[in-house]
């Protein structure tokens, strides 16, 4: 009748669960080990030596427990000089504890533990003998197992709690950054929308008054505001594509010079009525490359529209040159420049983690993040040089062939 279960873990979850103090001891029986009181000590010793899992056995006579023999007690006696010879053939009852702690299976765990703990020190860890209301033997409750189980569960719950805390604070941080980022993007979207609303209103005024010349000026501004709105939306959409891992490269052969010319023209639109000169400088008449024209446009246009945003007067120059298997495209402006402390976080979408309330710079930090990602996607590199107050140059290097 040796059916001892030492498996302390809950089989369903693999976790050790904390045992609550109001549990009945009947549910916590760890072993049903028992032996007849008249069995020789030798037989009990064989059981203990043969089963390392067995820590104790109840001495049961016709279902009624009358004693407890623990591994410790048996070993202590047997290892004495001639212990085995002296005791081996005697009945086990002669060396057993004949007044172990009996507990009713309906007893609450805390009550049973109180009783167990008030025993003399050397018996504190002895098994409790669990009996049913009729006094019949049900099994043993191992204090040692219970302690191990409780401390496992406790340690586990502390680890779980710490993990949960760490995860929660991480999530909170991410959500904070995302909220701030959203606030910044919203602001960036509002600016051109507000300009568009005002301009449309003004065009209505011009129409009413019949001022055609004014209408034309305002239309140019309206188009420039719409173009910058579109650029922001494109970047937002691109970033979500990047985050979802759905950005594909579609290679085509196209004329890079013509593409850059087109971008220069769009940049002029973005500048509206600003007195900033935009030009393309290259020694090539045309240069066919194998790349993704949509992404190239996005890359260079992001750089020129940044330049347009931060340049009040002077010029924006797009240069292109061939260097071996690569083309180098640079965008220089005579604008505001980038402060030393801002340089490091330039390419991170959440780099401009300034509160929208106190935000001093225009821009979401979105354009350059998307740009860098696209450059890498096309197998290229991007870097920049800048002097605060003097201007900035971005250098992009892209492979000519796929």
């Amino acid at each position, binding site marked *: 009748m040796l059916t001892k279960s030492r498996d302390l873990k809950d089989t369903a979850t693999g976790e050790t669960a904390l045992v609550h103090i109001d549990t009945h001891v009947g549910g916590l029986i760890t072993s049903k080990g028992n032996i007849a009181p008249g069995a020789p000590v030798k037989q009990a010793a064989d059981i203990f030596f043969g089963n390392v899992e067995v820590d104790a056995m109840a001495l049961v006579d016709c279902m009624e427990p009358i004693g407890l023999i623990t591994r410790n007690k048996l070993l202590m006696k047997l290892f004495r000089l001639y212990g085995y010879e002296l005791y081996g053939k005697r009945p086990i009852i002669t060396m057993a504890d004949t007044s172990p702690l009996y507990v009713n299976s309906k007893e609450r765990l805390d009550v049973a533990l109180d009783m167990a703990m008030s025993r003399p020190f050397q018996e504190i860890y002895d098994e409790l003998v669990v009996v049913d209301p009729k006094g019949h033997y049900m099994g043993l409750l191992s204090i040692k197992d219970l302690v191990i189980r409780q401390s496992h569960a406790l340690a586990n719950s502390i680890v779980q709690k710490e993990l949960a805390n760490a995860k929660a604070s991480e999530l909170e941080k991410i959500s904070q950054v995302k909220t701030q980022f959203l*606030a910044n993007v*919203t*602001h960036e979207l*509002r*600016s*051109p*929308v*507000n*300009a568009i*609303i*005002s*301009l449309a*209103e*003004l065009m209505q*005024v011009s129409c009413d008054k019949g001022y055609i010349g*004014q209408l034309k000026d*305002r239309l140019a*501004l309206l188009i*420039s*505001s719409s173009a910058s709105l579109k650029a922001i939306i494109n970047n937002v959409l691109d970033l979500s594509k990047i985050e979802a891992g759905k950005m594909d490269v579609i290679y085509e052969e196209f004329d890079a010079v013509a593409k850059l010319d087109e971008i220069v023209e769009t940049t002029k639109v973005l500048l*509206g*009525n*600003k007195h900033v000169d935009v030009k393309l400088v290259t020694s090539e008449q045309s240069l066919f490359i194998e790349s993704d024209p949509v992404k190239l446009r996005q890359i260079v246009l992001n750089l020129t529209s940044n330049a347009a945003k*931060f340049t*009040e007067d002077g010029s924006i120059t797009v240069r292109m040159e061939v260097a071996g298997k690569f083309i180098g495209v640079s965008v220089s402006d005579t604008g*505001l420049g980038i402060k030393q402390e801002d340089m490091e976080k330039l390419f991170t979408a959440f780099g401009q983690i300034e509160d*929208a*309330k*106190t*935000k*001093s*710079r*225009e821009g979401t930090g979105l354009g350059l993040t998307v740009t860098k990602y696209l450059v890498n996607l096309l197998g290229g590199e991007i870097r920049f040089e800048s002097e605060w107050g003097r201007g900035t140059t971005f250098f992009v290097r892209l492979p000519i062939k796929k």
Partner: protein
Amino acid sequence: MDDQKKTILVIDDDENLLMATRDLLENWGYRVYTHKRGFGSTAAIDLVKPDLVLLDINMPGLPGDRLAGLIKTFEATKRVPIVFYSSNDEDALREAVSVHKVRGYIPKGDIYELRQKVRQYLNCNCA
């Protein structure tokens, strides 16, 4: 008659919006001056002596909220009424108004609110 026109100075780095606001305000009968960056604003105020300043907040270099504090430190400019004119969230604007002790704010993009509030702030200005 022209001397009775109220003068408004609009400070904003966004040229499109600056022009649009100027034209709108002029259309409503105000004399309007524009200044396209934070820097040099106090000199502009001193020169123009406006009845009201519409001040953008998000400007590179010298943001409007800091500029408001600066304007208030100079003897020549400290009495001019300032109103934030910004695309920022209204809660943020309300907070900025109380922090920087300016007259109020007008959210960008609502032309009717612009018209009404400008009228309101100019009437309030009994200096």
